[in-house]
């Protein structure tokens, strides 16, 4: 491993390296913990939680697309209380930052969940205002600046000293509008991008592959969109950014960091190769070393636009 300082800081939360796993792709860590020591990661964004248990959408919930996948899981999860009782203690065995991801039907639900999670002692709360797979709340909060700001305020008011990171949707005309609204409302950090809405149709049956007809696109296909949006948001607001979208190798992570991200998340690429977060971390360090940097944090915002 090259001699490069991997430590980064995301809204006051120090991580030993900038590689996080993205919410919804990693469960609560138990499964991928069979492949590698979870302490190797900088952080874990846990599977998205709701106030009450949700069973999610009917199957099929996944479709393969050119260099990507569509999913329509629909926030299946055991509920915030079950997470705190059964999953958080498991994650706490590891030297890794735990980021809880929450979705609410109302601003009040976001508040209740923040309070519970702050009491339980998570390291950060990622506020999902951008899930494309649920009818109520979800994406609606993420596409209207005033609603995004309202949810952010409520979350901040109930999260105590735990930093609040708001996850932004790419399914908007101008992502900087939402980013500014959320920043003004007091968010500590931003994560982007969530999935892009998409659709695949089986040409023989004329049926969409997903039972919900549409779903969220992720994977290498969305990387350039993520890089562009991180760059735009980094130019528009002063908040630290967790960049994600299609990262499968060190170079992808470096692009997001140069665009303005302080840390990066790996998601879909896990399904093909469970060790991707580790190869991304090592690749990122290698590139930083080749660029003559002493710390990967020096990559953040380093893009030199024309």
């Amino acid at each position, binding site marked *: 491993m090259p001699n490069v300082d991997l430590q980064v800081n995301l809204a006051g939360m120090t991580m030993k390296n900038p590689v996080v796993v993205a919410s919804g792709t990693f469960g609560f860590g138990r499964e991928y913990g069979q492949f590698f020591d979870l302490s190797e990661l900088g952080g874990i964004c846990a599977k998205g939680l709701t106030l009450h248990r949700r069973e999610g959408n009917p199957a099929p919930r*996944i479709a393969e697309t050119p260099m990507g996948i569509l999913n329509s899981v629909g926030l299946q999860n055991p509920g915030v209380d079950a997470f705190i009782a059964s999953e958080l203690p498991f994650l706490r065995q590891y030297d890794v930052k735990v980021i809880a991801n929450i979705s609410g039907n109302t601003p009040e639900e976001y508040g209740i969940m923040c309070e519970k999670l702050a009491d339980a002692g998570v390291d950060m709360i990622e506020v999902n205002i951008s899930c494309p797979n649920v009818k109520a709340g979800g994406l609606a909060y993420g596409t209207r600046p005033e609603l995004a700001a309202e949810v952010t305020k409520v979350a901040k008011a109930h999260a105590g000293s735990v930093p609040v990171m708001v996850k932004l949707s790419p399914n908007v005309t101008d992502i900087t509008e939402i980013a500014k609204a959320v920043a003004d409302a007091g968010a500590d950090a931003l994560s982007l991008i969530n999935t892009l809405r998409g659709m695949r149709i089986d040409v023989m049956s004329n049926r969409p592959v997903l039972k919900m007809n549409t779903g969220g696109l992720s994977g290498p296909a969305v990387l350039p969109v993520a890089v562009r949006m991180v760059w735009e948001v980094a130019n528009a607001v002063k908040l630290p950014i967790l960049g994600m979208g299609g990262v499968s190798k060190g170079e992808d992570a470096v692009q997001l960091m140069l665009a303005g991200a302080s840390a990066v998340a790996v998601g879909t690429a896990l399904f093909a190769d469970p060790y991707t977060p580790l190869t991304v971390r090592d690749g990122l360090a290698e590139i930083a070393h080749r660029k003559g940097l002493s710390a990967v944090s020096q990559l953040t915002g380093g893009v030199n636009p024309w």
Partner: protein
Amino acid sequence: MKVEHKCKILEKTMLNDSAVSMVLEVGDMVKTSFKHPGQFVHVKCGDGLLLRRPISVCSCAVGSPSDTLRIVFEERGEGTKWLSNRPAGHPLDVMGLLGNGFPMKKEGRYLLVGGGIGVPPMLGCAQFPDQKATAILGFRSKEKVMLLDEFEAVCEKVLPATDDGSFGYHGFVDALVKQELEQDTHYDAVLACGPKPMLRNVAKVAEAFGVPCLVSMEERMGCGVGACLVCACDMNDGSRKHVCKDGPVFDAKEVDWNA
């Protein structure tokens, strides 16, 4: 537990015009992760596809220097097409053994039911118990019949059926299951793998005779290990379980057949 392995194709044969049989060298995969017959492996099919392909294990054996495992699959799309074109000697990236399989007992007596590409996993089930099993195997037509000799070598009785009557019983396997259970209900369980409508019908017959029935379900899969939650299976109690981690084998009574 390490569940990813660099494997090698030892042998490749065609069982009919569409079913490919591959024997893989899988290191210590069987030793370290075999639970029951009916588990699956998650195979990476080239560099261009993001998702692995879940394929049922037909049979497997602990060995030295390497365990071996046999998969049988049909070309259904890009991934399985890539896989079917790999020659013997080619390396493969395989995760396994995954899922829970059929919770069989060595001393158990089983009625095995397979339909189409659901037939191969039942061979591993036939080889497992000390008591010889009965196998009811359904195919579309005579041209699609496969593995018959191998089932006959280990089973007490093998009853083939074809949808078009070109070989064996003319009709679906659930009718044969009914015939068999009318004569003999002394089975510990009916174990079935095949298309969902077949499983539903077999489960109905087994229930009518009061014999426990376990079914192996199929669903589009992502991670294969229970993290991404895409392979949902609707259960009778309103919950959604996951084929990769909770299954692929479920108690037929727990499955919501109307979903």
